[in-house]
């Protein structure tokens, strides 16, 4: 029932140019793994050749190691899952001394995710890692819903985002990517604040705050009351936020939320994303990111796109609204 776009001549998928650019960093292709869903990369090295991916976004690290939240940390919900990990991570020192060297050996393009409860903590992280070999870019997690301090709501303030990014910017020569929370009234405002502050790119979006109650025990199905919702259930919501953010700024946007297929990834690209991140899908299928990449390549080839960049923002909301007067002047007519 839909009007197909004009047909192009197919080209061999292997010849599709998938390279994209995030600030000064060139990625082989737009498929990355999402922070917190692929460990520190090496866990999956025996099933996924990390060097074939666009990049690996590592688990958010904080200055000190964090033990994370008490159980239960996971609850499945229809089409999605809630998590309340609470930023369990090995901390800055072990990340730099043990994890990064391994990732260098695996030839992964590493995007190091950093998180802090205050602007100062983020400065400490960037001062320590900002010029470290083997880090391609930094993703600043401004959007964790699962920590008592320094979480998504703390960072939902556009001014704080702008000021903090302006302080971080001089501390590294690598691109800075600001990862945004979807739980805001207008993501265009936080997006623009990050751009003003000097972010080289945005990631839209982190998980959505959610709650599930175990009635019989009359407590949360998680150890903490709320968690973050991810997976296919949130894809339409994440896509809407990604589309809005991408149209509000000139810097590249990385899409995240429910991506599980090449078509999902391309929906985000069409909505304006330069690259995308595969998260929860990896829990279902360890090789999800690789499959998403191959499906994307196939689709682009079959539809005659020589470069993935042709498709960035290709979706325009030019809809046949002209046939639908919102208010019918019934009184005037009858």
């Amino acid at each position, binding site marked *: 029932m839909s009007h197909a776009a004009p047909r192009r001549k197919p080209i061999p998928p292997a010849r599709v140019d998938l390279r994209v650019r995030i600030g000064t960093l060139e990625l082989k292709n737009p498929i990355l793994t999402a922070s*917190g*869903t*692929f*460990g*520190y990369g090496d*866990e*999956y090295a*025996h*099933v996924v050749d990390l060097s074939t991916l666009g990049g690996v976004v590592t*688990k958010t690290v904080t200055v000190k*190691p964090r*033990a*994370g939240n*008490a*159980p*239960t*940390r*996971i*609850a*499945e919900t229809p*089409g*999605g*899952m809630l*998590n309340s*990990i609470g930023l*369990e991570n*090995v901390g800055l020192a*072990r990340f730099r*001394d*043990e*994890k990064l060297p391994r990732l260098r050996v695996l030839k992964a393009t590493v995007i190091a995710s950093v998180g802090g409860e205050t602007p100062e903590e983020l400065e400490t992280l960037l001062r320590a890692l900002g010029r470290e070999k083997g880090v391609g870019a930094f993703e600043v997690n401004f959007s964790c819903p699962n920590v008592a301090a320094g979480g998504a709501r703390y960072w939902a303030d556009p001014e704080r985002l702008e000021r903090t990014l302006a302080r971080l910017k001089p501390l590294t020569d690598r691109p800075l990517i600001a990862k945004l929370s979807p739980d805001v009234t207008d993501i265009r405002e936080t997006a623009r604040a990050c751009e003003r502050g000097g972010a080289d790119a945005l990631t839209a979006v982190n998980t959505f705050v959610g709650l599930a109650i175990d009635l019989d025990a009359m407590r949360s199905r998680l150890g903490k009351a709320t968690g973050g919702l991810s*997976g*296919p259930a949130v894809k339409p919501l994440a896509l809407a936020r990604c589309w809005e953010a991408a149209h509000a700024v000139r810097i590249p946007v990385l899409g995240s939320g429910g991506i599980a297929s090449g078509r999902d990834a391309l929906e985000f690209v069409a909505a304006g994303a330069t690259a995308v991140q595969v998260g*929860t899908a*990896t*829990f*279902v*299928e*360890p*090789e999800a990111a690789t499959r998403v990449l191959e499906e994307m390549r196939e689709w682009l080839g079959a539809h005659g796109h020589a470069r993935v960049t042709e498709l960035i923002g290709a979706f325009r909301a030019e809809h046949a609204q002209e046939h639908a007067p919102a208010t019918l002047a019934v009184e005037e007519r009858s």
Partner: protein
Amino acid sequence: MSTPQRTWRQVAAKVRAHREYGAGFHWLDLEVPTGFAAPVAGQFVQLLLDFPSPVLLPRPMSVASASRRGGRLRIGFLYAPVGSGTRALAKLAVGDTVHVTGPLGRGYPLAERGTPVLVAGGRGVAPLLMAADVIAKSRRRCEFVFGARTASLLVGHAEARERLARNGSRLHVATDDGSRGFRGNVVQLLDKLAGKLEPPLVIHACGPHGMLAAVARWAMANGARAHLAMESVMACGTGVCRGCPLPRSNEARDRVLAEGAAAAALKGNPEWAMCCTDGPVFESRELDWERVE
């Protein structure tokens, strides 16, 4: 513990048998393609229904048997349909496809020196049926303590008896209501039997966490070693999501802190062990049983 790490893969498996097993349980036999490593008793897999599936995440399931037929590996599972995922599993027909990620986690250290005592509570019998098999194949004997609320819930009882008979191992049954065997729980029965067995005892147990905590405490109080197969809600099953924490004992915490980097394959969290990669089988001293839920 045996630590066959990073050998897991996700493969498409075929249903070769699927039958009712009594008391609402089902037995599922899958044939996995070559390349899938042979699982150790106590290890588990993540079972994922073929697309389109009514649930998102795969479901963790202990391996209850592993055998080769004509060069092909078959793995068996004993499960109860309790929610959407396992109820959908129950609809599988012979020939259907299921995706299997595994083998995952650390199994029972069955070769550990001492008298093996297998302690099963309810559906916890699944990995212990396999453990009994392995022990039988290595021509050793074991004691198999099997408990349930009532006789009809002793699922796999006949199977256990048959497997054990091969090498002179013994089955000891306990029911809370006394409808079969000893009246009481497995720990009471264990306590009664222990005196007659040659120390040191090496217990391998699986069952509800409450039972496992009691077994662990008994073992610590009685100088036995106990290896307990734990459960947790899981997402990845492979250690990356950090979603399946179990509370470490103070002793284990201090060790992780001291060993630092070397501990637990670089992922050591001194506070919480991950069920999927640090376990699911834990020695009694590894966990803080007061905080196990």
